[in-house]
């Protein structure tokens, strides 16, 4: 069982790497800054909403792109939503793929759209796993009686 300082160090290193590798941007830090005593689970709550919403969007996108006659406006609308919520939580790489995705929608390029769907799904799964790992670390720190380090 790791000590509190060890866990805290792990937390700092992990958070820093997530930023350096572009998985999370400054917007995620903004969310963390909004968390306070009156709302101690704010980040987890917002991110959980994001996970729920994203999974729905991914399903809707898969369905929309499977139609005999694809409604690109509808596809674009879903991608727009996905880009918006990803930006709002700081999931930078997911948001970036959404930009390309929207371009393919405008071109009505089915192959491009299908490729982007795969890519965006991959990036989403990656960031989801990383965020879950981060929250897991936080829980370990709290359960060991420590506090979560403030990241600058």
């Amino acid at each position: 069982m790791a000590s509190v300082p060890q866990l805290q160090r792990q937390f700092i290193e992990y958070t820093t790497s997530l930023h350096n590798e572009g998985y999370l941007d400054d917007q995620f830090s903004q969310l963390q800054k909004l968390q306070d005593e009156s709302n101690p689970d704010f980040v987890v709550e917002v991110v959980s909403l994001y996970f729920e919403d994203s999974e729905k969007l991914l399903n809707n996108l898969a369905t929309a792109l499977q139609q005999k006659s694809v409604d690109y406006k509808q596809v674009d609308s879903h991608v727009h939503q996905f880009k918006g919520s990803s930006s709002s939580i700081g999931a930078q790489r997911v948001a970036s793929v959404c930009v390309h995705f929207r371009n393919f929608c405008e071109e009505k390029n089915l192959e491009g759209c299908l490729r982007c769907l795969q890519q965006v799904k991959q990036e989403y799964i990656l960031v989801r796993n990383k965020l879950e790992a981060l929250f897991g670390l936080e829980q370990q720190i709290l359960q060991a009686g420590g506090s979560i380090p403030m990241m600058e």
Partner: protein
Amino acid sequence: MSAEYHEEDVPHVLAVDDNIIDRKLVEKLLKTSSCRVTTAENGMRALEYLGLRENHQQNHCNNNGSKVNMIITDYCMPGMTGYELLQKIKESSVLKDVPVVIMSSENVETRMNECLEMGAQTFMLKPLKLADVKKLRHQLTT
């Protein structure tokens, strides 16, 4: 609910956004900036809350009688856009003086201009930052 504030001291903001994550975020940003917040998920619900029914019937107060001091709305919404909502508010003799802020994830100059020309107080880029919202809050009391 903040028990420390008297109702008159705290601005009441109506926040309109179809995206559930953005709604939660804007609500938190506003509450952190000492505002009372009501959220609506689209333009129609916003108008209903403000007491503006579909065709011209107007009330002085909304459903629970508390005055709205500012409306902040997303631009891209299905059904009624933020621009259309802004228009309806400016056409209302009761509500035309309530400041309306438009938020958008896209920095399109023509969009910004059309909103400002229709009487929007400010156009803000999403995702919103706490500093932006605090500035907005400060403007409400001066």
